[in-house]
């Protein structure tokens, strides 16, 4: 394969395509790139196959048979929820590519359940099974996988093109460098260290690395997804709470509380006291279906001796940030290229506004996007990477936590706590106001200034330092965008601007590290049959 290694920095490899992140989008990108004959390396912070938001969970996926009527209905049905920001042409491409990918998965051994007539049902993927297979497919296609090897910074060449990355091998205690022709950022969303299932590794590292190389973002105001979970547990599955009755401490039903369209009522109650749920609206058949749909949902209950269909249990809302939000790296064309040459983005790291506007709802879209964007980015990166010139001079683009810019390193744990304190609270992030956002931004901006004027973090702290820096940067793009959108649309909800504003049916670009700037771009033209309603529409609680 032409890999060379040198003992000096640990591992030194050369390849055509480097994929950062080994969730669905990263593995699809790597698999696709390798199939074109490119030399591919995939580096994951954790273990490719168990890390990220999909691996431990059950995933419903946007799969629609190629009947034009069904496809059109699937696309149109979600437009209002997303605040009329999605693009029909992109949605159609994603449905087509996802459909083909799921058929291929079945052919390569994914054990889809079958209906009465023996036909596979392809609307859901079990995370452990899916990601074990994706690892196998990527390896089988010749991808070299580096586990427990978080990337810390991108490498750029003289012309400003991205030409590789550098990171650490945390089980070997040394470093790695990969000189690549092109890089795919597939590091997932940013969930700010919340307890949501599978989100610990998702701290926005790829966002920061890409921004340091010059990439920008779209839709970062759509970044406040909160999911329902039992308050002791990590497993979130808001969908199942469709069958719940929500009660307060005294056992009284909370009026208006619901998993969809009433989640804000739950958040309001949680600000004052505990909220309880019981899935008592599921009949025996549905109970059995739920168990057969997602065994991991029941693990925490079974192990606590709680019967969620009969017993009341306390619930909470876990922040899922941009993981189930829709904002991320801005894509400039159909290959999922960013605005930086040689740099591509896929999955949750990229914006998903193209297919679901400002709201992902119960899911499905993100999983389909991960598959499709991964395939496109992988293919395009392979083509770009193979043509990239050899023998380029490369240097690290990283900033805070890596560069010698001050007398002392910063404390990563403290920096992380500061960000968490600004993004987790409902009164900051769920129910947004100009006052709250501005106050948070003051703290986040000064934190960024402090982090970028520090000494480099030492070996054992460097990953945590970069994670804290990344979360700080992501929170700033989020809140600057949220401040600029003086209306409520999609999941973005402004208490001081409660209605949607027709004049703001546009997309927001956020860019910059030292100074964050926000500008707007036109949304895709409204289709003749999509009638925007001024108030209420596109606001989902």
């Amino acid at each position: 394969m032409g890999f060379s290694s040198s003992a000096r920095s640990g591992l030194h490899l050369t390849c055509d395509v480097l994929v950062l992140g080994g969730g669905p989008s990263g593995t699809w990108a790597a698999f696709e790139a390798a199939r074109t004959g490119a030399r591919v390396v995939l580096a994951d912070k954790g273990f490719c196959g168990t890390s990220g938001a999909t691996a431990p969970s059950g995933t419903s996926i946007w799969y629609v048979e190629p009947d034009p009527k069904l496809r059109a209905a699937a696309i149109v049905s979600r437009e209002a929820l997303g605040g009329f920001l999605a693009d029909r042409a992109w949605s159609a491409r994603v449905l087509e590519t996802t459909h083909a990918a799921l058929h291929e998965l079945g052919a390569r051994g994914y054990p889809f359940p079958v209906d009465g007539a023996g036909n596979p049902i392809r609307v859901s993927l079990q995370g452990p099974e899916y990601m074990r297979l994706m690892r196998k497919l990527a390896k089988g296609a010749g991808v070299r996988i580096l586990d427990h090897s978080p990337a810390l910074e991108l490498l750029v060449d003289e012309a400003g093109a991205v030409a590789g990355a550098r990171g650490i091998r945390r089980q070997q205690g040394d470093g790695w460098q990969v000189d690549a022709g092109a890089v795919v950022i597939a590091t997932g969303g940013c969930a700010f260290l919340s307890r949501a299932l599978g989100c610990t590794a998702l701290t926005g590292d790829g966002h920061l690395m890409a921004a340091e190389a010059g990439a920008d973002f779209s839709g970062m105001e759509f970044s406040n997804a909160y999911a329902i979970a039992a308050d002791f547990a990590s497993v979130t599955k808001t969908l199942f709470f469709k069958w719940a009755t929500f009660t307060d401490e005294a056992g009284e039903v909370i009026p208006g509380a619901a998993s969809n369209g009433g989640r804000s009522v739950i958040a309001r109650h949680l600000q004052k006291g505990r909220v309880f749920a019981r899935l008592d609206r599921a009949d025996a058949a549905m109970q059995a279906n739920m168990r057969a749909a997602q065994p991991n949902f029941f693990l925490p209950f079974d192990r606590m001796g709680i019967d969620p269909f009969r017993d009341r249990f306390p619930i909470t809302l876990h922040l899922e940030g941009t993981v189930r939000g829709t904002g991320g790296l801005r894509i400039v064309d159909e290959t999922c290229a960013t605005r930086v040459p040689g740099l591509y983005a896929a999955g949750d790291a990229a914006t998903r506004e193209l297919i679901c506007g400002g709201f992902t709802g119960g899911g499905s879209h993100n999983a389909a996007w991960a598959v499709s964007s991964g395939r496109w980015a992988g293919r395009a990166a392979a083509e770009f990477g193979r043509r990239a010139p050899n023998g380029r001079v490369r240097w690290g683009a990283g900033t805070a936590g890596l560069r010698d810019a001050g007398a002392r390193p910063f404390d990563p744990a403290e920096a992380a706590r500061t960000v968490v304190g600004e993004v987790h609270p409902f009164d900051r992030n769920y129910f947004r106001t100009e006052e709250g956002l501005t106050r948070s931004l003051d703290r986040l901006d000064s934190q960024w200034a402090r982090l970028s004027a520090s000494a480099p973090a030492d070996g054992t702290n460097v990953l945590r330092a970069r994670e804290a820096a990344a979360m700080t940067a992501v929170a700033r793009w989020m809140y600057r965008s949220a401040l600029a959108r003086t209306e409520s649309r999609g999941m973005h909800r402004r208490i001081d601007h409660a209605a949607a504003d027709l004049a703001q049916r546009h997309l927001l670009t956020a860019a910059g590290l030292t100074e964050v700037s926000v500008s707007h771009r036109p949304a895709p033209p409204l289709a003749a049959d999509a009638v925007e309603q001024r108030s209420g529409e596109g606001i989902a609680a």
Partner: protein
Amino acid sequence: MIELISAARCTGCNICVAACPTNVFAPSLSGPPVIARQADCQTCFMCELYCPEDALYVAPTAGAPLGLASEADAPLPLGTYRAAIGWTPATAANRSVDAMHAVLSAK
């Protein structure tokens, strides 16, 4: 949160050391790996799925371990999750059991 490794069951294969996405375990030269960074555990249950011996137990509480002293204290036998998803030879048929479509299409 990861709670215990059963020394009686563990063969020291170190698969969990590789498979844990948050690098919670450290290998030991002889015997079971150690839970070296328990606070980093994200309660994802993946280690239970990858352990071929059902030697691990992850407590359901995400914030803190329950403080179980040994396997005998676990409320359920070890390995229930692996069996449920069909990753044991005896339960392989479960791999293709998935009723999510029925949940999704319910009104």
